[in-house]
């Protein structure tokens, strides 16, 4: 590239969606990228053609070790491991088992890995259809003999998928572990490696026969937490320890590949069969209540043909009085309304204040200590089962996969403290 007396030579870079059309970017020998504005006095000429970059990591051949457990890793689009081609600056995701072993050699000491891709989406683009696809793949792997299944997933909606799998998978007798990373896996500081290794350790060695999420337990790199899939939430946009178990203790801690239990959980069995209860009604709305909220919102939800409403109420489970009539209308048209709390922590109790009592009289279903996101997924999953509102209410209030606890410990609230 030649412009105003300055000559620069380097590898032409692909234009990312971040840049504008007026600049050309080259990578210099020093490694720096340089952007030049294409004005009339800029001259561009091709001087050479380089070697095309290899796609992917150099695979490492591995022989299955009969003394190690067989763990299946399902990919959904999150990158749990990757490598960088410094020549071009491209980042390549690890995909196959061979590539994973290449990126995280410690895996060979833990398990025999088998990988397959279920889908490839950013997790904000997850949907009930994809949840079903994932569940079917999990069942197939476990029924096919896998000692445990790991699902690599984007962190944004990992909690929702975990809840959905918890409801869908019947007869789980092996660990089903969701894992992701907060800091991209191309960087040396990524939480990906510890998370992946911990997840594989849980899937391959633990006796936890539940759907769970395994992620960093602190901002240090020393341990991961095992969270029940129906009690876990992403609580911070960027910290490594973003996932927290809400209103309960995590199932356990995993440190140096060993598990330390913290509470009760369903134990693994020698054999069994996993089936998938796969129907979802996607037309459920999750509405956050706020001062000044207009009844129009609820009415337009009803008019749009929605089949269920989860309210994220204030405090113990309240809404402004102005909403009572439209809530009544919803319930009268057989659209169930379930109350959870935007406090996230704590239990809904609508008997304490008159507002709550009034809402109960209207027929609102109190959501106990369920997370709003989990209640949302549960209602989607319950709606196809019955059109009887009383039956639906009963099911909503029944603890199916640990989403409702009957008592809350005093040591399970997240608050600011002068520590990590």
């Amino acid at each position, binding site marked *: 590239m030649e412009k*105003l007396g*300055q000559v*620069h030579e380097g590898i032409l870079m692909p234009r*990312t969606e*971040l*840049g*504008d059309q007026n*600049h050309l*970017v080259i990578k*210099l*020998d*020093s*490694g*720096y*990228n*340089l*952007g*030049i*504005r294409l004005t009339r006095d800029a001259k561009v000429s091709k001087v050479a053609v380089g070697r095309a*970059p*290899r796609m992917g*990591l*150099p695979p490492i051949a591995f022989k299955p070790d009969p003394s190690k457990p067989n763990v299946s890793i399902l990919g959904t689009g999150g990158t749990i491991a990757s*490598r*960088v*081609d*410094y*020549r071009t*600056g*491209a*980042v390549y995701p690890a995909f196959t088992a061979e590539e994973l072993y*290449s990126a995280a050699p410690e895996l060979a000491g833990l398990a025999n890995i088998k990988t397959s891709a279920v889908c490839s989406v950013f997790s904000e683009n997850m949907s009930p259809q994809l949840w079903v696809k994932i569940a079917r793949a999990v069942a197939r792997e476990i029924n096919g003999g896998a000692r445990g299944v790991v699902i690599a997933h984007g962190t944004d909606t990992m909690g929702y998928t975990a809840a959905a799998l918890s409801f869908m998978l019947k007869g789980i007798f092996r660990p089903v572990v969701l894992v992701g990373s*907060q*800091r991209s896996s*191309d*960087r*040396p*500081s*990524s939480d990906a*490696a510890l998370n992946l290794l911990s997840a594989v350790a849980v899937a391959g060695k633990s006796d936890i026969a539940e759907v769970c999420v395994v992620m960093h337990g602190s*901002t*240090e*790199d*020393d341990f991961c937490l095992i969270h029940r899939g129906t009690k876990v939430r992403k609580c911070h*946009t*960027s*910290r*490594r320890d973003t996932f927290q178990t809400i209103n309960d203790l995590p199932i356990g801690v995993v440190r140096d590949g060993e598990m330390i239990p913290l509470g009760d959980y369903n134990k693994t069995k020698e054999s069994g069969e996993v089936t998938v209860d796969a129907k979802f009604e996607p037309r459920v709305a999750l509405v956050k209540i706020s001062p000044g909220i207009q009844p129009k919102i609820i009415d337009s939800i009803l008019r749009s043909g929605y089949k269920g409403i989860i309210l994220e109420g204030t405090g113990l489970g309240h809404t402004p009085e102005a909403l009572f009539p439209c809530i009544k209308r919803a319930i009268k048209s057989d659209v169930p309304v379930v109350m959870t709390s935007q406090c996230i922590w704590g239990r809904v109790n609508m008997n304490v204040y008159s507002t709550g009592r009034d809402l109960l009289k209207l027929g609102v279903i109190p959501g106990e200590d369920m997370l709003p996101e989990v209640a949302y997924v549960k209602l989607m999953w319950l709606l196809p089962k019955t059109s009887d509102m009383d039956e639906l209410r009963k099911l909503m209030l029944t603890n199916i996969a640990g989403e409702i606890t009957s008592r809350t410990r005093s040591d399970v609230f997240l608050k600011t403290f*002068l*520590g*990590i």
Partner: protein
Amino acid sequence: MTLDYSALGLRVGFEIHQELGTRKLFCDCPSILREEEAPLKIKRRLRPTQSELGEVDRAALVEAIRGKGFRYQVYPENVCLVELDCEPPHPVNQEALDTALEISLLLGASPVDEVHVMRKTVIDGSNTSGFQRTMLVATGGKLDTTKGPVTIQTICLEEDAARKVGEDADFIDYRLDRLGIPLVEIATGPDFTDPKTPAEAALKVGQLIRATGRAKRGIGTIRQDINVSIRDGARQEIKGVQELSLIPAVIEREVKRQLALLRIKGELRGRGAAHVEGKIVNVGKVFSKTKCKVISNILAKRGTVLAVKLPKFAGLVGKELQPGRRFGTELADYAKAYGKVGGIFHTDELPGYGISAEEVSKMRNMLSATADDAIAIVAAEKGNAEKALDAVIARANQALLGVPEETRRALPDGNTEFMRPLPGAARMYVETDIPPIVVDEKKLERIRKMLPELPEHKVKRYIDEYKLNKELAERMSLSENSELFEELVEKHIVDPTLIATTLEETLVSLKREGAMVENIQRSALDEIFDLIRMGEVAKEAISDILREVAKGFSVPDVVQRLSLRKITEAELAKMVSDVIQENWILVEKRGRGAMQPLMGILMEKVRGRVDGKLVHQLLERELQKFEFRTETS
């Protein structure tokens, strides 16, 4: 210097890193260094990444081999989630980028049209994310030196790294206060051909940066790395030359070192030395009764003593490369870097250290080493000892080829020591969390308008406007205090020369005396110059007052306590006549000749409280009166 540097093909380039005093580059934290104990410590590990070819970058491999964890010290007031790699970087600090563009324009360089932030892999723990964020801002500048112009290849803006504050067997301690502070990096081409001009040029570049007013002040805020090579030698990157005055010495000593290594290569060739096979032998049994404490301690702890023959190396391992450093010191550096051992022994310095001639002889037998061969010995835990000797063998083999390319650390005496192999091609890829930044003509116009005054112009202005003499004007224009000087001149109706000498000479000599001049606040200077203007204190008193203020006293206290309040003319007149009376015998005897001794006595008494000229005037007048009186009596 008697070396002919041009015949040797000496080429030198340098990189200056200057911290800026703005907020941090990728977040809004204040750029402050902290010395007290950190309230939070967070432990992390970094995983080495691999390049596309499956090779691990040479420098990265060395770091990974050391395998320690990192303990990061956190001060919540100026270390946030960004430094902890728990939050994506914020957009680039505009003030810092503008400063980098200013510096680019001052150096005649061409800013790029679009700035791309890159990630440069660093896994020694000094960057929590495992990479340093850096961006190319400008290319192609020029710096004039007494030996001709030198090219400025690149001007980059990057984040400074965490500072290492400790290390134990398992962890390296880093303090995150410095991580993220903006650094402007200015790199010259390898255009220097002598050891002195680089120092002159580095000073000039430093002045230009300080002219922007946004350079951070203090020790360690400016660092120089020098690249040195001679024709038959190899490029060395010498890091961390803290003082400009050390640059010539570092270059001279590095040239000497490379020449000495080339002589060793020649000598080895002459002796017919070949590739060192490097068979490592366990010589532990030779030392079963040794008097060498180091070895007996290791053996007691179940460690091993391993040795390797370096054929034809006898006498060369002990050869001096730099004052106080021998080739054996280089081998020991490699052993320490790769094997984590404390050091090595070698036959060029044995018998010694408690190792007897007999033990040496036994080793020679075991290794079939003749008197022409050298032996390197390591005592340590087996795995470390093996790694250490492998490194020694590798370095010995490089001696056969000449000078290896290395990154070396500058030492306070101008010597250098091995740090790591010179890194391969830069391990950089795009920082995708930050979109590219367009640098358009409008932005450059705005910056051109705010370009600071060049040092040459400032000198002229100080001479013309403030009537400073040339020497004082030059010193003041280059001084850290130039801004303060101008403010004080604006504020106080006092001779600018007085203000300049106070800042540039008085404070300096007080510091040399050992006074804590850092304790002198701006307000104290204001008070002093106010008192001067009001005529309450004589300029001669300034030094004494500042000396006390440096100890922590307030200006009014000092003036009162030391009775430095200016003496009135009436008081002085009385003092003069008292002194004359007390010494009337002398006056009678010498008459006018008594001036000098009496001036001495008087200045002792009034020192600092009155203008010497006035004393002289009054004394002369009184003496005349006295004479007149005696003559008439």
